[in-house]
């Protein structure tokens, strides 16, 4: 489970960073989204006592109430906040992206296409 999650986070981060460095605004926003998915998964994996595999998140009767038996609630709270904020920021970025596209007529991150050969029609 750890290996699978680590590979998933790694792949998401790698693709996110690569897309973030691309010259098109749409690629940048995709990169930022992938990066935030990777970060959210990463926060989940950072609970105390490692990954909570097969542990219940909700308290149940008859089970001792400690982290040996339950998933750590803290990363869940953190990830919830991070998702909400990340989503809002991505939406805002999307608006700025559209404004930039409308004003400059190009979707290049620098708003000019003079030094760029891959021209969009």
């Amino acid at each position, binding site marked *: 489970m750890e290996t699978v999650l680590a590979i998933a986070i790694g792949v998401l981060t790698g693709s996110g960073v690569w897309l973030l460095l691309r010259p098109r605004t749409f690629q940048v926003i995709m990169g930022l989204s992938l990066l935030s998915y990777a970060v959210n998964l990463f926060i989940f994996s950072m609970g105390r006592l490692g990954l909570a595999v097969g542990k219940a998140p909700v308290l149940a009767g008859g089970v001792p109430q400690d982290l040996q038996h339950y998933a750590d609630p803290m990363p869940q709270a953190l990830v919830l906040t991070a998702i909400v904020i990340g989503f809002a920021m991505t939406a805002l*970025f999307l608006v700025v992206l559209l404004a930039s596209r409308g004003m400059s007529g190009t979707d290049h991150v620098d708003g000019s296409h003079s030094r760029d050969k891959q021209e969009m029609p």
Partner: protein
Amino acid sequence: MSQAHLLDAISRLMPHLMLAPIVLPLLTAALMLLVREERQRLKLALNLLSTLLGLAIAVALLCWSARAGSTATLAVYLPGNWPAPFGIVLALDRLSALMLVLASGVALASIVFAASRWHRAGVHYHPLFQFQLMGLAGAFLTADLFNLFVFFEIMLAASYGLLLHGSGRARVQAGLHYIAINLAASSLFLIGVSMLYGITGTLNMADLARAIPQAAAGDRGLLHAAAGILATAFLIKAAVWPLNFWLVPAYSAATAPVGALFALMTKVGVYTLLRLWTLLFGAEAGASALFGGPWLVGGGMLTMAFGAIGMLGSQRTTHLAGFAAVLSSGTLLAAMGFGQTELTAALLYYLPSSTLAVSALFLLADLIERWRNDGTSTDPDDEDAPFLNPELLPTQGLNLDDEEEVLIGRVIPAAAAFLGLAFMACTLVIAGLPPLSGFVGKFAMLTALLNPLGLGASAGLRPGPAGWALLALMIITGLLALIALTRAGMRHFWAAHGRAAPRLRVLEGLPIAALLAACVVLTVQAGPVMAFTQATANALHAPGTYVRAVMSATPRPSPPKEEAPAL
């Protein structure tokens, strides 16, 4: 007597008063959202009133934390009424109070300046401004890492809106880069915070300070990695080289009052680094003591060099102001990284004075550029702004020696004289020349570098190579800043041949004069201010008091439950 009464009244309001810098802007902004967009005057009045009240509260908090003869200079507030490591904690100490006053002061100057014209350049200026203040105050007051993240995001979200205020292609372009780098920085922030939680099991700053010396030896590397990642997020905000290429385009594209406010935003990064680094990696942190110090020193010095060279290469006054912000930020980071109490005290004096001067320069730049363009603001859509061309070609009026007119006795219009004097004052503070506060701050830092243990106590001690390098760099960057600013001043004020006298509105001159007057006050009152920053630095470098105060805060007992009325 009345002073004692006032302090007494403030003490009675504590610790609830420390919540006001966060709640007041929040409520004001919420209220303004209900007001129709056409009622700009009402919104402006609300904004001014709230900011003024915020400044008064911040000054009250500063007086409270600085009051003499009291041991409890630290206020702790438990918003959720949970004891320290479990609930969110707000803590107010001298450093937070100082930053609050600085933020409210700059904000007030900015909003007064905006009141003359800039606030009409787009919608929702006033609510965004208040949300920005809320985020700033929260970042200064919180004692919890994740809460810090939330306040950072509030501050950034508002700053995105403010940066785009007035629209135009240059702003949208700069805003795109600014948002992208800050979103990436937020990801780093989250990674660092969650790693710290995974290793230590807490996000409370005071609890972290206790947990770090006790971390297992095997976790030490991971802990340092987490701290490094977290610090990178703050260093991006603090505009350290090479993570600062976004700053100058963004700050110079922003409208002038927003630029003045943004000059403060880099200091938030500096504040957070200072707070967390002294708390988590101070001398008491065991195996992690002073971790990352050399990085701060090195990064800070590179940033200083970058800022000074950038200032030399700047054509526009707004770029000059942006690079001055970078230079000031680099100086603070490099001085912080030594981890010496005396040096920290000196940099805490330098921080407000340089922030005030850079903010004033941003406001001034707007007036100067408008003057050059005969009353119109620069068109951000125009990539080759018209005022740039005459500067690149030698103009006729440039060489004053060949001037045929008699220079002596020519009447200088009052507005031009004001602009010139204000520019000169900014130059003196930023370059660190006597007699203004920039010189006092730099001199104090140089003294602290040469006498690491304080005057008289450090005989025979010599600064290391890093100390000498910073010493030299501080003097050289001061000289370069002086050259750049003098050149700009000559171009704008002496070579102003054949141009109409500038038109200056009182509302626009007042905030600049007030910011510079604050610098003068800092100079005149250098003794008490230095005593205050010395006490602040002492407290920062002995974080035991802070940790104990936060961890021992007890929740209020809940009122006894009332019996349910019988039906």
